């Protein structure tokens, strides 16, 4: 601004100010002008701005992570290295060997002999219902377990089926699992080894087969059984059988028995079918793994499930009170010894793990 004024001075004021007297060689307007030295010293220096980016540690980490993700997108993942048998931990083999030796020991020496388990009230109730079943009473039996659990479920299923066939009840088989159709045939075949009955005899039982839809299918079964199950797996009409003529709803059955390895399936039967049953008892034969989930339905007051039988233990107890010795009785000694061996392995493993953790803490 000062320079502008200096520049315009001679041109703008040359003629107009020429009449005024001179003062120390300075023109009058120069008295009011700021000296150039002072103006230069008063001017502020521009603030220096850094061109560097200030990044926090977290931002740096996130950036690196993003770069890593983007880089990994273009790189083909490395195939997992094939492990050779020699490199595998011997621990797994040792545990398997311990369990197998226990099994072989029991098969060869059959010692020690374990006592059969006590019959629990919920299992005894099933036995009582089956014992008091009149001839030709219609009973609905559902085989809802996977073949993988046949080792645990078959003994219980055969124990129940043996009693039912002995009492001459009329059986109707269903399943909510497509594989259950084959499971039903397998259990019938296993039971025929101990109880004499005619396989495929429509006067003794009918296999109504698969109910699709899971819980929705069960709701349909509970509310309109005749339209849900129009025919048997062989294509024969179901409801013309004399024993089923009076069955118009699910509550017309003498009892409902569900054999399942899944807590969800057991719960679906209780939730969808249970409320429609009235006085018809709902009995469940289930895997040992379902006990913590299904037991509250039995313990509830009023009971939502009237009878329960869990795993090989329940099957062995049932065979013991019925006197029909079958698979559960055969497996009971081997099962008991293997459970003891497995428990010892778990206990030792837990102790070793605790000690090693404590020693790591010390160091």
């Amino acid at each position, binding site marked *: 601004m000062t320079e502008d004024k200096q520049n315009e001075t001679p041109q703008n004021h040359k003629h107009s100010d020429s009449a005024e007297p001179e003062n120390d060689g300075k023109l009058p307007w120069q008295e009011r002008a700021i000296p150039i030295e002072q103006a230069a010293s008063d001017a502020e220096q521009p603030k220096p701005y850094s061109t560097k980016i200030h990044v926090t540690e977290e931002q740096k980490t996130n950036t690196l992570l993003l770069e890593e993700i983007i880089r990994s997108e273009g790189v083909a993942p490395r195939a997992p290295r094939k*492990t050779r*048998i020699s490199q*595998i931990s011997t621990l*797994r*083999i040792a545990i*398997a060997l311990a369990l*197998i030796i226990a*099994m*072989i020991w029991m*098969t060869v020496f059959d010692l020690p002999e374990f006592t059969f388990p006590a019959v629990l009230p919920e299992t005894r109730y099933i036995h009582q219902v089956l014992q008091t079943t009149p001839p030709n009473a219609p009973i609905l039996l559902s085989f809802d377990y996977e073949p*993988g*659990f*046949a*080792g*645990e479920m*078959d003994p219980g299923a055969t124990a129940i089926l043996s009693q039912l066939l002995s009492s001459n009840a009329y059986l109707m088989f269903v399943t909510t699992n*497509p*594989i259950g*159709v084959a499971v039903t045939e397998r259990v019938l075949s296993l039971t025929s080894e101990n109880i004499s009955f005619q396989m495929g005899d429509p006067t003794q039982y009918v296999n109504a*087969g*698969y109910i*699709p*839809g*899971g*819980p*929705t299918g069960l*709701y349909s079964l509970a509310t309109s059984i005749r339209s849900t199950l*129009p*025919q048997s*797996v062989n*294509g024969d009409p179901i409801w013309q059988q004399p024993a089923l003529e009076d069955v118009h709803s699910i509550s017309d059955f003498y009892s409902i028995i569900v054999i399942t*390895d899944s807590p969800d399936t057991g*719960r679906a039967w*209780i*939730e*969808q079918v*249970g*409320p429609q049953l009235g006085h018809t008892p709902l009995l469940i034969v289930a*895997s*040992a*793994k*379902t*006990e*913590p*989930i299904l037991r*509250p339905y039995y*313990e*509830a*007051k*009023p009971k*939502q499930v009237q009878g329960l039988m869990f*795993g*090989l*233990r329940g099957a062995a107890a049932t065979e013991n009170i019925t006197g029909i010795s079958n698979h559960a009785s055969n*497996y009971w000694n*081997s*099962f008991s010894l*293997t*459970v003891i061996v*497995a428990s010892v392995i778990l206990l030792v493993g837990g102790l070793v793990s605790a000690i090693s953790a404590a020693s790591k803490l010390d160091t």
Partner: protein
Amino acid sequence: MSLVNNISTDLLGVIVGLILTLCIFSYIFGDNVLFRLGINIFIGVTAGYIAVVIWHSVILPQLIGPISTWDGSITNFVKLIIPLILSILLLLKIFPRLSSFGSPVMAFIVGAGAATIVGGAVVGTFLPQITASINLFDPQIQNSSSELIWLLIIESSFILIATLSTLIYFHFSARPNSRGSPKRAALIETIAGIGRFFIAVTFGALFAGVLLASISAFVERWDFIISVFLSIFHL
């Protein structure tokens, strides 16, 4: 007679069963070809069997059969044609360009399924279990029981404490403490600790059940293997 005729179906089943069982047990030595072979055979056979069962038990008797024997009734025609159209629309899901036609059907299935499950859970589990928890302290029910009354009261109280403490364990509301980090109230924290104990016991019981189920399957399979070998060597 040929060798094939001499081998009975049962014996063939036993041999196939033995080989497949050993294939699965080979997992003891880690993931290997035999184990994968066994698994793939099981998956393939299961898928094929399910397809056959669904065709014979569902599609044929409940859709195609009634259509082929239609009696001329308009009501029955509507009852049959709606599932048929919905089935065809659902089948379009396998074609990427036409899959959107199947979406409403899928939505209907999911919606109806969810409604059934939720309704069943409320009527079959939620309300009865709440009623059962209340009934634990009903003097009339306690008097009708054959058990000792004081034992019932202790048992009921124990169940009540377990139920409440487990529910409180999942109460995650917290206030910031002096250092600014969230912390539950001391009383809630104490009860939640008791709830954690009951949850741990539940998981322990579930694990024990799974272990027993697995050992049952293990025993049955090894009993089968040993009996086959014993019969082969006539022992």
